[in-house]
């Protein structure tokens, strides 16, 4: 009978946890605190002329990227196709047609958006991605196991993977020049290199204010929307544009942070491991109940037959 006694004990100790089983209060996502002083970059795509100096500067400052000669960045033929970042390129500039044929072409620069509520940070199984309080999202390749869940999770499809690297593949994306420049008090290399000052680096809240002021001061020059101000909870890199954002390959996203979909589910199911313990206790209780009932029936039969 020790089996059933053990089960019974388990049931009693777990009974308390059953009270918490239906607890729905744990639905709050574990959102990292966003510092109000964090940095941001405002990109004014109406100024970009497609000179690709930002790409060149990025390649120069990041020494672990494969070296590209300067002539690569002077090639205008690359604009024939729409490029995306890959394992050797943290940022790309693409060319788009404007709404009216006679208008000048529109150029837009892509890189990691350094979201306020990053999907990659939430998705990574070993925590290889961290979000610095200044806003930069950095990657620690030492922890990475190469599962590529972050690639699937990113709503902007930013991270690139070194599929061709056999032994030590890494996830590659813009680091906001965190280690190379931000910690030294300098601005990111691409921001510095741009001759047209397309990008403005500063406090994110200030930049948002500036952006809205710019829109008001220049009616008709910008679409009255700052992309990245609220998309997926807000991103550090924000954009102004003259043509609709989906026409310059920015996905139309909602304002709810992406981890806000999975984390409430996970936290509700696993809050302090109580729901699993509750299930555990419930199963134990059922087992005990059914087996003791059967034994009782058997006992009755034996008694009855004897």
């Amino acid at each position: 009978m020790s089996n059933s006694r053990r089960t019974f004990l388990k049931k009693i100790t777990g009974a308390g946890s059953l009270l918490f089983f239906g607890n729905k209060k744990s639905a709050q996502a574990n959102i990292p605190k966003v510092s109000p002083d964090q940095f941001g970059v405002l990109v004014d795509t109406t100024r970009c002329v497609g000179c690709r100096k930002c790409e060149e500067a990025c390649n120069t400052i990041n020494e672990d990227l494969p070296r590209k000669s300067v002539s690569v960045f002077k090639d205008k033929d690359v604009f024939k196709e729409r490029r995306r970042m890959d394992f050797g390129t943290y940022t790309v500039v693409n060319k788009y047609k404007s709404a009216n044929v006679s208008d000048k072409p529109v150029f837009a620069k892509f890189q990691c958006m350094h979201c306020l509520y990053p999907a990659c940070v939430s998705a990574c199984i070993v925590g290889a991605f961290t979000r610095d309080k200044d806003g930069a999202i950095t990657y620690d390749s030492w922890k990475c196991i190469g599962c590529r869940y972050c690639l699937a999770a990113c709503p902007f499809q930013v991270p690139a993977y070194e599929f061709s690297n056999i032994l030590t593949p890494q996830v590659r994306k813009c680091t906001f020049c965190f280690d190379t420049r931000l910690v030294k008090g300098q601005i990111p290399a691409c921001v510095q290199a741009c001759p047209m000052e397309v990008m403005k680096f500063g406090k994110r809240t200030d930049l948002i204010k500036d952006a809205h002021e710019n829109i008001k001061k220049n009616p008709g020059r910008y679409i009255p929307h700052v992309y990245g101000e609220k998309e997926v909870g807000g991103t550090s890199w924000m954009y102004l544009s003259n043509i609709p954002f989906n026409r310059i390959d920015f996905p139309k996203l909602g304002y709810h942070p992406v981890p806000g979909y999975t984390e409430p589910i996970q936290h509700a199911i696993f809050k302090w491991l109580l729901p699993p313990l509750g299930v555990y206790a419930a199963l134990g209780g059922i087992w005990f109940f059914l087996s003791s009932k059967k034994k009782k029936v058997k006992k009755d039969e034996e008694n009855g037959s004897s």
Partner: protein
Amino acid sequence: MNKKISLLMLILFMVCSLFFVQNKTAHSDESVNKADKELSSRFITIPEDIKTIDRAPVKFPHDKHTKALDKDEEGCELCHLKGIDNILDFTYPRKKADATREAFTNSFHNECIGCHTEKNNEDIKTGPLTCGECHVIDDDFHNNDYLPIMPEYYEPLRDTYHKNCISCHQDPAKKAEDAGGLDWKSFYVKKREFIEAEIPAVNFDYFLHDKHEKALDEKCEKCHALSEEKKSELEKLGKEPVCRDWLQELPEDKSYKIKEYAHSVCINCHLDKKDKNEDGGPVYCKECHLAEKRTADDMLEVKRIECEQDEKILIKLEKDMRMKEVAFNHQSHQKVTLSCQECHHDTIQACSVCHTLEGSDKGDNITLAESYHSVSSSWACIGCHENEKKKSDCAGCHNLLDTGLLESACETCHNGVIEDLDKKNPHPALEKLFTDDIKKEMEIDIIQDEYELSKFPHDKIVAKLVEISDNSTLASYFHTDNMTLCAGCHHLTPLTAKSSVPQCRTCHTVRKEPTEATPALLGAYHQQCLGCHIQMGGTEEEMPQDCAGCHEEKK
């Protein structure tokens, strides 16, 4: 028993898979008239009270039919009835009284398919006979924002629609700024709406008007109408009607904006002439509805309409005008517009007649001040001037300058003196502009990193700007001071100081601070110089847009 169930399930599966097959064939209908991407192919308008349609709207290639039936005896009359006065009624279907769905559909099916069948029987090359060949679902159907109606004919929306639209609307917090909740019915409605492809409106400019005037021997009544009151009023005064009288009170149903009225008046006359084998006007759609417009330059020689208008006017309020009156050169404005309508909408009247101080219904509730000063509307003075500033000759400077109402410019218009309109103030010769201390060619060598110093042809740039300004009436009127042009680059500096204009690097520092609101020197040079070159879009020699064009690379 299990065999029966399995069989049932198999049949169910096959039935379901038929849906895919059907969808696929709707796709692959090859008989789409690909050649008919012409202007005159438009979707047939379905009357408002027919709420649902079972098939895709039909794109009707009108000109194709006109061409084909040219040699036919009946010609246009095959489809368009002759009404009273033997005038062809260019509406279709003919029996407008029958607005029921069945009558509407039958009017097309009986006529169209009937005619095609007839011609087919006579072995003449003719149009489609089957449903799917007219009711085509193709790219135009998608691009025209048709809302799908019934599942069978609903083409699969591209994944982007669903990915973008529904994923945003699906936001659990439902707080996405301009997104509604996920009520799928709001996407798929039974009521059909569609936005027609814009067919270019007929631009009846001065050139055409002049042509018609000559052809019709200045008989305005052929096209224009006078109200009875106006007729009697003029008779009393013993005057002949002038153009202003014809257009001052336009009855609503006689507006050339109404398709039926315009077609009735224009095409009937043209057809008439054609029948008499005289030189008439166009009969085909795209010959009037041209995509390209004539420019003001094309019409420099064309005579403007005689309307007893004053050449120069002083625009003022009747009473209580505190600012000086505005001197307005009507004649020179006539030279740069394409038609009277560009400013005067449909009628030839003073702006203040409909646009009252407080705004009235006649003037669409636009107040008088707004009608002159609106920055965004091309009907208004300021708005039109803003558009002019966006042209490539002007945009080089004006792209970076403040737009809209500038306090400094009020006096330029509100000067109260009509004679000022004749004033011309061209820039003095370059030698006078460039004194000894202003260099003609400069070397910018302050920030040299990857490139050598830049040779800056100051005199050439000023010469070009002066040329542009002096050649434009608008520019030379508003560039009141000889030095105004200099402000295009030397902004925020006292221009009378001339040679003591501060260097760019004084305010636009070399060192870039993260929180600096003014661009650093690198940004300032490129935004100013390169920005201007891009806006003005000149040749590579004149206005290089390539790095090496302004400064050579360092070896």
